[in-house]
């Protein structure tokens, strides 16, 4: 046993020596400095194994940047991620950077939570670098003449339709409805009723209000409604004639043409719509580009994607999350966070995320990244979403956006249930929203 003890001591000595050498080497490799540790919050707002892909990408970044160590924190969906980030900010321990729902811009600014990125953008080539991002995606990154976020996982609602059903109904499968009138007419041909007048196949489903009025904003833009203050986020105009006509059109689809399931579009409806589509219970749907992968892998029929049919004009809101850098973090953390954002949004990396998730490409050069070109050959429909970005409008980005969004959702549902007329519902929403925005005037 005594001999064993001695051997043990010798082995420990050897181990210690090896460890010392290893530590020395590691330090030399890292420039004799501990890497900057960045706390990075990210949400996952779409289906699919996106958690794993995000972890892979962060690991690749950490491996190629020895001076920086990004520590990703999965923060739930967008609402939860925002709540986590804000709680951390209020507690005085903000994360270094986060991907948050882009329209939270004013909410973050009102809490003095984020920093403008102009100087960092200037370091990276300024306007030339920024102009490679799609303009529509930057619309709600700007406030007070500054850029506050860099697009990341961006989406837009898009119009999916079942080509087989078009053929059966005698419609040209390569000609989706171009405008609201055609949509109603197509809907009537595509709505199928059985002998006892029960609907077995709906013409169209649009989740205009689930817990956010996102898809409805597409209809507002198409109706030509100027429904919020795009400059300073201080007012909304929900009850303009254009806005009322958009809501009236939704009700017409439900009640007059009877081509859309009746009643309020609820939270559950949001998830039900793509399910209904792959189950062939509906011919045309509005859903996020983020569901394209789901539809592609599950649809047992020929389908296509198209622009949301136009009202007075084509239009769709953008959606999804962008990178924000937080206020009150050390300067070297700001630089490191920027290095991470630049790396993540490089065309090759951004393409990796778009392909893995179904989010739209964020940069023009991303389209020519080899991986994305190959992906487009396989899924040509993915290009439609990118093209629609050219006609996309700004997603409502105002102060207290979550509260006012909820008010608009309630108004839409009140009109759909018949409790209020479209005009009365939107008047009510306008009054409630104005009362909330009062404090920013």
């Amino acid at each position, binding site marked *: 046993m005594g001999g064993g003890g001695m051997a043990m001591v010798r082995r420990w000595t050897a181990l210690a020596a090896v460890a010392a050498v290893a530590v020395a080497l590691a330090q030399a490799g890292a420039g004799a400095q501990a890497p900057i540790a960045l706390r990075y919050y990210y949400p996952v707002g779409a289906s699919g194994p996106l958690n794993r892909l995000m972890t892979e990408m962060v690991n690749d970044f950490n491996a190629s940047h020895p001076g920086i160590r990004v520590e990703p924190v999965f923060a739930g969906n967008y609402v939860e991620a925002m709540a986590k980030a804000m709680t951390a900010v209020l507690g005085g321990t903000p994360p270094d950077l986060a991907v948050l729902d882009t329209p939270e811009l004013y909410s973050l600014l009102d809490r003095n939570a984020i920093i403008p990125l102009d100087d960092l953008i200037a370091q990276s080539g300024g306007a030339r670098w920024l102009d490679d991002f799609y303009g529509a995606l930057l619309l709600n990154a700007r406030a007070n003449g500054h850029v506050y976020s860099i697009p990341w996982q961006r989406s837009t609602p898009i119009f999916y339709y079942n080509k087989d059903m078009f053929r059966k109904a005698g419609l040209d499968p390569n000609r989706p409805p171009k405008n609201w009138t055609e949509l109603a007419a197509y809907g009537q041909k595509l709505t199928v009723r059985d002998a006892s007048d029960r609907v077995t196949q709906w013409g169209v489903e649009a989740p205009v209000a689930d817990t956010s009025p996102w898809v409805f904003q597409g209809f507002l833009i198409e109706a030509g409604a100027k429904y919020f203050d795009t400059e300073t986020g201080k007012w909304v105009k929900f009850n303009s004639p254009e806005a009322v006509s958009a809501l009236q059109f939704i009700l017409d689809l439900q009640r007059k043409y009877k081509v859309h399931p009746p*009643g309020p579009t609820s939270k559950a409806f949001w998830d039900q719509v793509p399910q209904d589509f792959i*189950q062939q219970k509906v011919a045309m749907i509005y859903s996020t580009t983020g569901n394209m992968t789901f539809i592609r892998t599950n649809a047992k029929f020929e389908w296509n994607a198209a622009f949301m049919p136009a009202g007075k004009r084509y239009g769709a809101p953008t959606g999804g999350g962008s990178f924000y850098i937080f206020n009150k973090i050390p300067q070297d953390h700001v630089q490191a966070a920027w290095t991470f954002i630049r790396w993540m949004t490089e065309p090759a990396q951004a393409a990796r995320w778009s392909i893995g998730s179904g989010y739209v490409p964020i940069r023009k050069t991303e389209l020519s990244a080899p991986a994305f070109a190959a992906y487009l050959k396989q899924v040509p429909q993915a290009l439609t979403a990118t093209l629609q970005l050219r006609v996309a409008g700004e997603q409502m980005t105002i102060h207290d956006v979550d509260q006012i969004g909820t008010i608009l959702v309630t108004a839409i*549902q009140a009109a759909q249930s018949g409790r209020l007329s479209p005009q009365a519902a939107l008047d009510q929403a306008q009054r409630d929203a104005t009362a909330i925005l009062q404090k920013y005037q």
Partner: protein
Amino acid sequence: MQDQTEVRRFVASPVALARPAALRRRWRVQPYLFLLPSLAFLATFTYYPILSSLEMSLYRVTATVSHPTFTGLRNYAGLATDPIFRQVLRNSAEFLAGTVPVTVALALVLALLLNRAHALTTPFRTAFFYPTLLPLVGAAAIWLFVYTPGYGLIDVYLRAIVGGGVNWLGSPALALPAVMILTIWKNAGYYMLFYLAGLQTIPAELYEAGRLEGASGWQQFRAITFPLLGPTTLFVLLIASINAFQSVDQIWLMTGGGPDNTTNLLLFYIYQVAFMFFDLGKAAALTVFLLAVLMAIAALSFGVLERRIHYEV
């Protein structure tokens, strides 16, 4: 007894002999030391948050206001004029009235049916208890599918009877009942367990005597079973009422409070106001209100109802 122990320790320990006063003091501290862990947890996660909510409810605190300003009872006054709060109260009352009596009655019936041992008792007990084992979030996700119009379980079976296409979670009239049905399904088995335990404590002689007197099954239930289950019923009613006011998971997952705020319940509204709208002062006032409701339920149960309940045979 305690004194004897002390005496023995005095003799055994020279240190104790030298400092008897100190030891005696330590002896009295001991019970508090045992209480300390739970006290620490209660203080951290219950008492402090309650006091802090009380304080915050008197201030205007939103994430945009850097320095909270004292506003007295203005947050409470704001609640009185908030139409959504009024609707939330109506919804919560409806939810309470719709879930508690049905769940408790169902639990009692299940317990009575499954109290006597026969071949199928165990499988049935397991079947009725199993919803309790599921996390509520998982159960709500399943019921989301059950309620799907067109091909959801309920729609498929109801189609033959009333015609399909009922949009349970999308209809302002049906959304809250739909959530209630899930809640009843989820909780009945759990309360059944309390009743089963209660039934075991009723002496068999009482039923024997009842039978000898020629009492029918219903008479036995009315005169023996139900009165003797009084404490259990009180307890289950209390738990069920508190649960009703604490329901939030299923709302969050299934309806988001909609459509048109018809399923917005008190706790979900607090979540909305606090973590989506970041109006922390108003959320604190709502929390104090919820707390008052829960305490009132507890006081009512233990104060008023208790007097009418038989505890002794």
